């Protein structure tokens, strides 16, 4: 559904050259749900804008929904849906009017566009809001309208740029409910960026991590965590001396009375670890195991935490 080779975008800002995206090779099969994850400025949105024909690539190629983004942008546009970071509906326009206009933009007749608009109003629970203007909608309602606008022409591939950013937990859950339903009912391929780690973790079956314009990891959340971060065992001891002794015996790193070490399978390793400490005369007061997060993966790869520099744009 998506295939890029050496996709690159260079910006010139005040005579300085900024390589926003540096040679991305990416293949996405039909029906996948891919989360594109990375700190701000990593090149997520720039990549997305190239894939959706909003920005011509500086070099490299991208084929999206069977058409080349540079040679046949019209062919791409007709086949993809796009839900941008900002709200899609015009402030002066009524909700239903915008949906009808969107259908007309894809070449539907007025009657077809009106029918489709009503379908989408029902699908995304927007029917009572049909005659309202966007300014009178809540954040969650506006986001549902954005998604409705992206679905008017029943695209096989939908791009979503930070679909749930800025929403309260309830609205986020609702938006995700709609997104996952789409996939189940229509088999839509979904490619989305997010900076909510837990979202990428629980929702996406494939996580692509981008940093500094390059893809630095690509796999299922489980694979990435097992391969790149591993589980952790954390124990606390009565004294700092004990903690240091525990590090000598079992490895890991001590911080005060807390010892943390990385293992492949924490639940299985814990009893053996505790026995080893016991026989060395070190007493653990508490012990717990934890699965890594995607942030641990990012930390392992880059030495930085994703949440550190993930300031709002």
């Amino acid at each position, binding site marked *: 559904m998506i295939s890029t080779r050496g996709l690159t975008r260079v910006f010139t800002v005040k005579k300085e050259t900024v390589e926003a995206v540096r040679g991305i090779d990416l293949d996405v099969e039909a029906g996948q749900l891919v989360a594109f994850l990375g700190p701000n400025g990593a090149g997520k949105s720039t990549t997305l804008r190239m894939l959706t024909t909003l920005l011509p690539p500086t070099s490299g190629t991208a084929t999206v929904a069977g058409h080349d983004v540079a040679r046949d942008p019209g062919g791409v546009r007709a086949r993809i849906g796009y839900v941008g970071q900002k709200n899609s509906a015009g402030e002066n326009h009524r909700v239903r009017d915008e949906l009808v*206009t969107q259908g007309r933009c894809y070449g539907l007749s007025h009657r077809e566009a009106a029918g489709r608009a009503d379908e989408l109003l029902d699908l995304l629970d927007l029917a009572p809001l049909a005659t309202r203007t966007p300014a009178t909608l809540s954040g969650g309602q506006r986001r549902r309208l954005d998604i409705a606008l992206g679905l008017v022409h029943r695209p096989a591939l939908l791009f979503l740029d930070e679909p749930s950013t800025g929403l309260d937990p309830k609205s986020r859950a609702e938006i995700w409910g709609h997104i996952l339903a789409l996939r189940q009912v229509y088999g839509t391929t979904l490619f989305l960026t997010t900076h909510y780690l837990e979202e990428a973790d629980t929702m996406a079956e494939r996580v692509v991590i981008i940093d500094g314009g390059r893809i630095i990891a690509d796999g299922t959340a489980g694979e990435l965590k097992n391969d790149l971060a591993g589980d952790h065992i954390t124990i606390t001891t009565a004294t700092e001396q004990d903690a240091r002794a525990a590090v000598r015996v079992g490895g890991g790193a001590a911080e005060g009375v807390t010892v943390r070490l990385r293992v492949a399978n924490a639940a299985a390793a814990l009893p053996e670890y505790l026995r080893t400490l016991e026989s060395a005369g070190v007493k653990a007061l508490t012990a717990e195991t934890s699965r890594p997060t995607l942030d641990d993966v990012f930390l392992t790869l880059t030495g930085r935490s994703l949440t550190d520099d993930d300031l709002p744009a």
Partner: protein
Amino acid sequence: MTTFLRDTVTVFSRELAPVLRQPVGLLIEMGQPLLFLFLFGVLLDGAVGSSWQWFVPGILVMMCLTGPMSAGYTLLVELIGGSMERLLVTPLNRTAMLVGRTMKALVTFLVQAVLIIVLALPLGFELHAAGVLAGLAQLMALGVGLGALSFALAVKSAPDGTLFYIVSQSVLFPLLLLSGVLLPLDSAPGWLDVLGHVNPVTYVVEAQRALFSGDLTAPSVLYGTVAACLVAAAGLYTGNAAMRRGVTA
């Protein structure tokens, strides 16, 4: 071509829908010209010959300058928000995006112009139908050019929009004041007169006054038409180039 026409109609209908849903907005938008007409025009009555023949065309030129600027502003707002981006990801024809918007600006201008003329009739404005029609046609050429220029400016000003406010404020008012829309430039000192005659709007204003007095053959009509057409040509060239370069940079 049929796609282009369909897309133009799509854009035009989208832009016009809010106006049709709330036609009162048209009148509110006309607040300033209406105030000028009733408060300023009455003051001028008698001061410059047949004042309504002199003043009404000036008001129309003023509306023809501010209308297209507000069309550019609407585009700017959509560029800053996400709605223009959303439309750009659809196969909608790029040129149609501008043409449809321009057509909406022209239609609203025509409706407002007719309203002004009708309201001026009881005040003593004499209707010379042929002249008024020719005058409105000339203003539409000017409006197309200014609309396209303001679209280009909006594209250039996104995403923060500062440039748009600076240029529209620093260009629009001098152009208006230097065109003799509100007060005659006849008694202006030499330097002001020179500035006034570098301003293409001045020629349009003079042509409009001749036309609205029923004088279709005055030389000023020719100059005004040339000025309006030059603005239209410059606007279309610039606007099209801005669209080609992409409204997304």
